[in-house]
């Protein structure tokens, strides 16, 4: 790991521990002194925010689990019991339900940040891939959690999504029965979903640990995308970034609190306040908002198996993104054409989100198909080609240089610097 420990203490007990398990030194070098580029902007605060989200979900989830009953006849009632009779139970449940959404808002911002500034490129490929793994585990966790309150959308969402596995050739039908633990979504399904919903967040903790470990080997990327060249480019993590992160986190919690206390059900579906009924299919079955773009990709392809493949491919393509991108320049700041395509991708994902909320017919289907095609076009064609045809803007020689230029007059900036093609 980067940064060596210069931890010192006179406390004999701490010394005793430190010689046997150098945990204080580790904390000092990795959480306090850790050299961090001095030009990180607020988009870099979402890593800390995500760790916070995970901690909140786990702590609140454990308390909810003390009052929740995973049984098809009692699950819905036990959630209402939490809402009505458990002290501050309504607050805990609204925090947990809203927390899932806030978690995804943060993770999507975090990922788009990575794409914009080229944080997935050499040497951070593995760090990026671990991030994609985190996204997948989060998605699984949230999907399983949404089934637990056993409302109409819980049940029918679970049914639709698990049924997708029947598209697997040969073993599909058996696979679905195996997943369900029976011939329909029923009590065994709810029980195993609960068990896994409890387990996966802790798996997430493990993967997050690896993610941060990998980060501390390569160090942070930064808005210029230019590698750290000297000590002048960095400052210690504490107190500079601890305080910047704390401020950003307070703002994030402010938005979080707004939803918890004033719009607690806005991000969910009303119909999930009606208990699951296997005999009554809701008019529209839609997943939570954070799955909508993927759901749109799934449904824009009229063939079940191909739809499922496209949906998984839309995430897998992120795994190979570091090798699809042929540009040597990391940051979109110095890539004028890439920058515009980046924003087109963001818009495409938002449009896909709206498509996912609507039935796949008529115009919606068409828009969904164009959106899906464009999504893959972006990663598989545009990104590889851009690196070959785009002429990047001149880049500053170092982070310190970029900071100086930026402060010298907002007009000049990096563009004014003679074409010093710094090796990144």
């Amino acid at each position, binding site marked *: 790991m980067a940064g060596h420990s210069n931890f010192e203490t006179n406390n004999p007990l701490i010394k005793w521990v430190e010689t046997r398990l150098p945990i204080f030194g580790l904390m000092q070098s990795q959480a306090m002194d850790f050299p961090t580029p*001095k030009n990180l902007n607020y988009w870099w605060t979402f890593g800390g925010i995500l760790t916070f989200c995970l901690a909140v979900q786990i702590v609140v989830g454990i308390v909810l689990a003390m009052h929740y009953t995973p049984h098809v006849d009692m699950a819905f009632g036990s959630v209402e019991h939490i809402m009505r009779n458990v002290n501050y139970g309504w607050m805990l449940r609204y925090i947990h339900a809203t927390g899932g959404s806030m978690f995804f808002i943060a993770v999507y911002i975090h990922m788009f940040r990575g794409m914009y500034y080229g944080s997935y490129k050499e040497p951070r490929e593995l760090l990026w891939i671990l991030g994609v793994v985190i996204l997948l585990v989060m998605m699984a966790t949230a999907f399983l959690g949404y089934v637990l309150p056993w409302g109409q959308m819980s049940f029918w969402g679970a049914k639709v999504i698990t049924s997708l596995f029947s598209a697997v050739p040969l073993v599909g039908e058996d696979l679905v029965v195996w997943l369900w633990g029976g011939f329909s979504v029923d009590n065994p399904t709810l029980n195993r979903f609960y068990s896994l919903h409890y387990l996966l967040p802790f798996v997430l903790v493990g993967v997050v640990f690896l993610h941060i470990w990998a980060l501390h080997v390569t160090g942070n990327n930064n808005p210029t995308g230019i590698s750290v060249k000297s000590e002048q480019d960095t400052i210690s993590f504490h107190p500079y970034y601890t305080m910047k992160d704390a*401020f950003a986190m307070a703002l994030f919690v402010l938005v979080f*609190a707004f939803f918890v206390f004033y719009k607690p059900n806005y991000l969910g579906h009303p119909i999930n306040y*009606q208990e699951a009924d296997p005999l009554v299919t809701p008019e529209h079955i839609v997943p939570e908002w954070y799955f909508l773009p993927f759901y749109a990709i799934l449904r824009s392809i009229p063939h079940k198996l191909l739809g499922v493949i496209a949906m998984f491919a839309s995430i897998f393509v992120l795994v190979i993104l570091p090798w699809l991108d042929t540009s040597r320049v990391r940051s979109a700041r110095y890539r004028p*054409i890439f920058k515009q395509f980046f924003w*087109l991708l963001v818009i495409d994902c938002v*449009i896909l989100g*709206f498509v996912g909320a609507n039935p796949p017919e008529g115009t919606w289907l068409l828009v969904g198909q164009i959106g899906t095609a464009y999504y893959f076009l972006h990663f598989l064609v545009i990104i590889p080609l851009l690196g070959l045809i785009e002429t990047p803007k001149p880049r500053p020689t170092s982070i310190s240089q970029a900071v100086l230029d930026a402060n010298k007059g907002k007009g000049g900036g990096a563009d004014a610097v003679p074409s010093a093609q710094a090796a990144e």
Partner: protein
Amino acid sequence: MTAASEGRKFTMTTLKQLTAAAGFVLAALCISPVLAAGDTHEAKDVDFSFEGPFGNFDRGELQRGFQVFIEVCGQCHSMNYLNYRNLAEEGGPEFPEDQVKAIAAEFMVMDGPDAEGEMFERPAKPSDFFVAPFPNVEAARASNGGAYPPDLSLLAKARAGYHGTWNQFINGAGGAEFIYSVLTGYEEEAPDDGEDHGALAYNPYFPGSWIAMPQPLFEDMVEYADGTTASVEQMSRDVSAFLMWAAEPKLEARKRIGFQVIIYLIVLSGLLYFVKRKIWANVDH
């Protein structure tokens, strides 16, 4: 060089236009309803006291609403998640304790087994759940021409009267408005669609427009204890508010605590901002 930069200029203007077009589509999507509401009417707009960040329930309205529920709706609909004691709790209708005891005592519940192993009936206590009008779903259906009168404890949260991502953000999902609109939305003159709807009543505020619930409220059906005139609109409004409370009994506490939390967080954010600025003041960044 010229050809390349020409080409680039071309790509960039095209891109800008594309971006603008995409933005336009996006804006259009935002205002279009997310779920097509079919031929069902959007709910009527009702000004409820519990709307907005500081809105609370109106005790008188909740008490009148309870009266409508118990005298009319409760003949067919259950209210499974409420206990009688909830009627006395803070943030609800806040009936006095002894009145709640008297209300509960009008219903009989099955209890037991007693020392002899026999089940017995006794008057309900405040700690009991609301007694349902029918022993089971089948009995409820049998008495209602095959249609099941849904449990009303959560209906105000389980239905949306308003649709559209933006509309719901501003106006809420409109569950109480949906109930109000159904109750006041019966129309004598049904459009002739050439189909036989049997005993169903025409109500364009109910999904599908044909409802198995006969119009439940008529003028002066209840005699309000506080002397309020019992028009259909008044009763509908009162019972809709009552059902909102039944679905979200902690609404007042939620908004009160929320306000404190928001103020606290604004102050905290402000302080953190100045701390951050002070710490960074001597760093070029």
